[in-house]
């Protein structure tokens, strides 16, 4: 085996003398704490992507180094430093949380590596802090709630109460929905977030109810989603204060909500740039294989992680495995010339995707499992609101 490897190695070196023999990708996500449920979904998607590409990007072997941010910016920065300095990876990808990405981005970019966000899209990286080596495989935080704001206007909702966690993404979500929502914002609460996040929302729900708003907009990703929806139900607000959410009702929370029999979630509507029901070949293959392998629906986190790997693959193949030519790699990434599971999209000048946003509805599938399906397209080729602030 060793001799074979050596021979194979020699062969590669003969054909492409300058190229490295493997592509090393560092993937930062949350693998401990309650948020590990998201991290596991992303890790599974990355593993599936590597399996789909046969462990190869062009002629190069794919090597993934997973790192755990522990849901904390300082830990995220530490593991990012390690990936860049010790493991000497070519790409750093992943990042669920905006505050973790903001803390870690400098380590990657200063070292002259490529940084690809598989989820987080805080406003600075799209605007003032945009960077030639940063790309997003997801969205800018404001976009999804902006789409929800449009939906609220269409449904004639006149006033809104807003709740979100108090961190970079939470503030972007609030800014996003306020940007497009035409009615009155009756009040808002930003709650404590992080590994010791506030999960008891009794005080905030009482305030929301007393405000007399016609709707309640929330953003509670990951484990907090189950807790929030539960208390929303227990408080009996379903009829008086309809819930409009982003990144809260998803493939992470739905199986648990189904297990706890929260039937009121069925029929609720959320906005997103991707959906398991999107009709394109790449998505159908991804969703079918993911379900077959892991026995559950992939979440949008999984879809974006899968796309991240496919995006890197397209760039590596385009430059013929020569990662030393950074300008060529960058141009290849920017072309986004791959079959994304969300369908075709392009990159804006700030390296954020210009893509569609859909309205999705929670339904039970043929087997009775709860999932979502697309009911309408809210935005076509939407550009994030911070693109103008980027001077690149």
């Amino acid at each position, binding site marked *: 085996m060793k001799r074979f490897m050596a021979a194979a190695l020699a062969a590669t070196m003969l054909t492409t003398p300058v190229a490295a023999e493997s592509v090393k990708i560092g993937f930062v996500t949350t*693998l*401990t*704490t*309650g948020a*590990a*449920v998201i*991290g*596991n979904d992303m890790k599974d998607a990355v593993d599936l992507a590597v399996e789909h590409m046969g462990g190869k990007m062009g002629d190069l072997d794919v090597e993934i180094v997973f790192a755990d941010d522990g849901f904390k910016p300082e830990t995220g920065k530490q593991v990012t430093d390690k990936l860049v300095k010790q493991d000497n990876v070519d790409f750093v990808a992943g990042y669920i949380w905006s505050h973790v990405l903001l803390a870690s981005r400098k380590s990657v970019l200063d070292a002259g590596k490529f940084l690809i966000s598989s989820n987080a899209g805080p406003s600075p990286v799209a605007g003032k802090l945009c960077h030639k080596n940063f790309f997003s495989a997801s969205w800018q935080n404001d976009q999804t709630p902006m789409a929800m704001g449009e939906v609220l206007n269409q449904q004639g909702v006149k006033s809104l109460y807003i709740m979100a966690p*108090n961190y970079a993404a939470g503030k972007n979500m609030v800014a996003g929905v306020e940007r497009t929502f035409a009615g009155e914002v009756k009040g*808002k*609460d*930003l*709650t*404590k977030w992080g*590994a*010791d*996040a506030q*999960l*008891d929302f*009794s*005080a*905030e729900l*009482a*305030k929301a*109810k*007393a405000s007399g708003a016609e709707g309640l907009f929330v953003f509670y990703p990951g*484990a907090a989603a*189950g*807790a929030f929806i*539960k*208390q929303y*139900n*227990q*408080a*009996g607000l379903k009829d008086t204060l309809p819930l409009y959410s982003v990144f809260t009702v998803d493939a*992470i929370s739905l199986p*648990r*909500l189904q*297990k*706890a*029999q929260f039937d009121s979630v069925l029929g609720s509507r959320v906005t997103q740039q991707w959906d398991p029901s999107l009709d394109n070949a790449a998505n159908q293959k991804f969703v079918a294989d993911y379900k077959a392998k892991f026995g559950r629906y992939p979440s949008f986190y999984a879809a974006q992680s899968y796309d991240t790997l496919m995006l890197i693959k397209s760039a590596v193949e385009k430059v013929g495995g020569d990662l030393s030519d950074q300008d060529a790699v960058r141009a290849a990434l920017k072309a986004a010339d791959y079959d994304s599971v969300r369908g075709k999209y392009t990159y804006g000048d700030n390296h954020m995707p210009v893509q569609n946003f859909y309205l999705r509805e929670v339904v039970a599938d043929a087997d009775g499992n709860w999932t979502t399906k697309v009911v309408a397209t809210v935005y076509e080729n939407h550009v994030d609101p911070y693109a103008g602030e980027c001077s690149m």
Partner: protein
Amino acid sequence: MDFALLFIQTLNGIQLGLLLFLVASGLTLVFGILDFVNLAHGSLYMIGAFICASLTFLTGNFLIAVILALPVTAAIGWGVERFLAQPLYQRDHLDHVLGTFGLILVFDTAVHLIWGPAGINIPLPAWLDTQVSLTEGVVIPTYRLLIIMTGLVVAVGLFWLVNYTRLGMLIRAGASNRTMVGALGIDISTLFALVFALGAALAGLAGMLVAPITEASIGMGNSIIITAFVVIIVGGIGSMKGAFIGAIIIGLIDTLGRSFIDDGFKLFMSSDAAETAGPAVSAMLIYIIMAAILAVRPQGLFPPKVR
């Protein structure tokens, strides 16, 4: 200010306070009487919630699950005392912190291995999953009233146990002078194990009660343990009365702070500044209160009489 809202928020604050009391009472017993710093007290809270979750799905009834899970949590507490705490009693507080911090990691990983990283939602029986309308405009979830009642019953029970029973007398005596209690022929190590198990059961009960509201999740104990330490520092370490009053104070301040502080700030600063400062200050509020009380009364509000 809306009176109905203030009333609801006060009830919410008392409910949070009573949950804190369940955790803090065990912590103050162990810290005050055994002189043992148990950072892993929050892990027992988490374990209680997870065991109760499994039993709920097994038995199909949340209340039966709670009754069954209590002795199990107490037994785990007893095991922790026997195998981890006891060898550490003679050592320094720093060793207690190290040992129990290690235990937190062990418990968190064990839960990760047994129950997986995702939290578990505990379904409530239908009769609890409703709301009670106290007056016009004052509606509160039935389950939160149940928490308030359970908390009060436990508080009364503990008060009776500590002040009017032989076991309570021994506990108080052990807190004052454990060597003397041992010299009088009382089996002090069994007494300590009992106190530890009782503390574990109380923390577990708090975890079981909170799980249907939030959910049973990894690390849920780590956030409450910090607040519980604040409670016993405010109330006076080792004092049951202090733990009760401290918990209610902290619960009310935290809830009312979250509810009204940004409105208060809007009176003297711009709306935008208030929206930024409000959540930041309300997250810090209980620590500010703790610092203020430490400055005025370093021993806490109700320190035990004999120390």
